[in-house]
């Protein structure tokens, strides 16, 4: 019997039992849709996070922060997590770091949370003390003025502000721009009772929009003051972290410099590299994806059991038909092929609709997630939110879902198909 005839015979048999075949197919559709949707969202999330990290995290930089607890994303405030040691990183520790081979520059960052007052408007912002010259050397692509100019030898009252501090609602309504005098308010919590300190600064530049989460690099939500000024305002020489620019971004250099810095501070600092963070994120996501795919695969296995069930019922109902086919001279392997074909057709239909449905679900879920998360908090529409997940459909996911769907269908059809092919014609014909 020709392949086309086998397929059309199998298709005819499925069409006869539309509802039953439809429900079985639905099982496969759900299983595959679950796999596709979960993987597409998770890969989209990974892409978004990686993207946002990279945009604020140059790959040729290291972050040195105090504490040995392996704080990956160096804490926004000292002591927020893990072990608090007596060790403090000082602004002039950059001198130690600069002596290490392959370090091309380093810049200390002092950071406190505060407010920016401009007229009657108030915006929350990180107040960061940095050396403008060094910082713009290290973050040449992100610490860039959108308007005004970043002075290399700034006046003591100069401030560079992030895009979102100037334009907090993303609609062009700026609360301050270049030339304005703004008040920076910082609450000193080291004294009792805590006291607010207010200083006047002149805006010299507004940064270009950085985008992303900017966990360590220049941020849209920060204001930058000269580091000497920050030291005197905050009354400290301790810094939050030191950013190190490397001569090269190859893994060996990153590794060697990281170790040298840790050694120079007797292991009391942790050194974080962009590549290390991205590696860890990607390995975390691999685990999550494996886990999600595993859960979804279970539903596909259930669908496989459904296929086996319908095939066995079908085998019982069609015993006599199989007897007739054999009496007409059909070979056992053709009977086997017909039954397997029925499963493949169900698996294929299930895979096609499953991939479509999964993709749809992933997009709907991404929208709901994006819309209900950041956007709701900031009152922005989903599309303008800073955290948008675009589900990702890789060829691997697509082919994998297809292959897995069809493979499950075939595997669960083998037993019933084999039984069908082994039926003895004389017994099958006698079957009522």
């Amino acid at each position, binding site marked *: *019997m*020709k392949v086309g*005839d086998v397929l059309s*015979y199998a298709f*005819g*048999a499925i069409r*006869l039992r539309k509802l039953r075949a439809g429900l079985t197919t639905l099982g496969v559709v759900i299983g595959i849709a679950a796999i596709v949707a979960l993987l597409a969202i998770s890969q989209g999330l990974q892409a978004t996070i990686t993207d946002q990290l990279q945009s604020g995290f140059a790959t040729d930089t290291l972050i040195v922060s105090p504490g040995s607890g392996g704080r990956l994303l160096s804490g926004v405030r000292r002591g927020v997590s893990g072990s608090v040691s007596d060790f403090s990183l000082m602004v002039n520790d950059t001198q130690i770091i600069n002596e290490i081979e392959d370090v091309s520059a380093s810049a200390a960052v002092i950071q406190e949370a505060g407010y920016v007052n401009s007229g009657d408007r108030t915006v929350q912002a990180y107040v960061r003390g940095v050396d403008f010259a060094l910082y713009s050397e290290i973050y040449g692509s992100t610490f860039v003025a959108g308007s005004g100019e970043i002075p290399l030898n700034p006046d003591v009252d100069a401030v560079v502000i992030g895009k979102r501090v100037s334009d907090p609602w993303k609609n062009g309504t700026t609360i301050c721009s270049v030339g304005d005098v703004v008040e920076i308010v910082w609450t000193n919590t080291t004294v009792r009772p805590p006291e607010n300190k207010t200083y006047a600064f002149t805006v010299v530049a507004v940064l270009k929009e950085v985008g992303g989460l900017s966990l360590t690099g220049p941020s849209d939500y920060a204001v930058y003051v000269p580091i000497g000024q920050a030291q005197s305002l905050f009354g400290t020489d301790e810094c939050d972290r030191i950013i190190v620019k490397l001569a090269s971004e190859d893994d060996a250099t990153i590794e060697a410099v990281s170790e040298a810095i840790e050694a120079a501070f007797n292991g009391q600092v942790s050194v974080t590299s962009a590549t290390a963070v991205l590696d860890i994120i990607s390995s975390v996501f691999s685990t999550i994806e494996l886990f999600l795919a595993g859960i979804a695969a279970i539903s596909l296995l259930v669908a496989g059991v459904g296929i086996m069930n319908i095939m066995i019922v079908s085998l019982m109902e069609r015993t*006599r*038909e199989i*007897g*007739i*086919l*054999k*009496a*007409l*001279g*059909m*070979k*056992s*392997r*053709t009977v086997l092929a017909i039954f397997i074909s029925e499963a493949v057709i169900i698996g294929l239909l299930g895979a096609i609709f499953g991939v479509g449905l999964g993709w749809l679900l992933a997009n709907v879920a991404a929208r709901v997630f994006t819309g209900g998360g950041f956007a709701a908090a900031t009152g922005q529409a989903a599309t303008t939110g800073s955290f948008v997940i675009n589900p990702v459909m890789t060829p691997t996911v697509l082919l994998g879902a297809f292959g897995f769907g069809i493979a499950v269908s075939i595997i669960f059809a083998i037993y019933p198909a084999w039984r069908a092919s082994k039926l*003895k*014609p*004389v017994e099958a*014909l006698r079957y009522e």
Partner: protein
Amino acid sequence: MAAPVVETVELKKIYLLGKVPVNALRGVNLKVEKGDFVAILGPSGSGKSTLLNMIGALDKPTEGKVFINGVDVSTLNDNQLADLRRSIGFVFQFFNLIPRLNAIGNVELTLSIAGLDKNERRKRAEELLENVGLKERMKHKPAELSGGERQRVAIARALANNPSFLLMDEPTGNIDSKTAKEIMGLVKQLNKDEGVTIIMITHDQQLATQAKRIVKMLDGSIIKEIDQL
């Protein structure tokens, strides 16, 4: 001289009915030559259906041999048996048509099992159905056909692959007497005009007299052979 179309030698079949062995065939020797029309006559339990299953290569004997066109059936493997069955035209008492296929589809199915392509088999199936007088009913499904019409479809299907013989099991057992006469007329005509070899199994004395030769069976043995010519 060519080998007989069918020959059985000391054919024995013992099967278990529950735990009781039943001697369905006790050494049957039968020879059917080309162009013959043999009726195997016997009451139920005489072993005629078991004999049909052996001759049709649907079942294996316990002892003895079946030769079809000189080939020892017991030497054939599963695939060769399937090929052999294609040279046998089965006509069953309960028609055994595939319900979801229409008349022409049922005939075409046999041809597609034999590997004919679509155009060839469509043409051949139309011819066959026309020959059995079903030109106008080709697109009807078995459920929409009368018993006589269904049996005609079955006969057309049996003839599709130019079989070396037709093997009929109570071909009129499930249809009214008037239609039965017509069917028998068709069968006799096939035998007479086209030289189709026919082996027919029946318990109906009247029907058996239509054949050229009657083989009477009882309790798993042939008890009498009557040549009607």
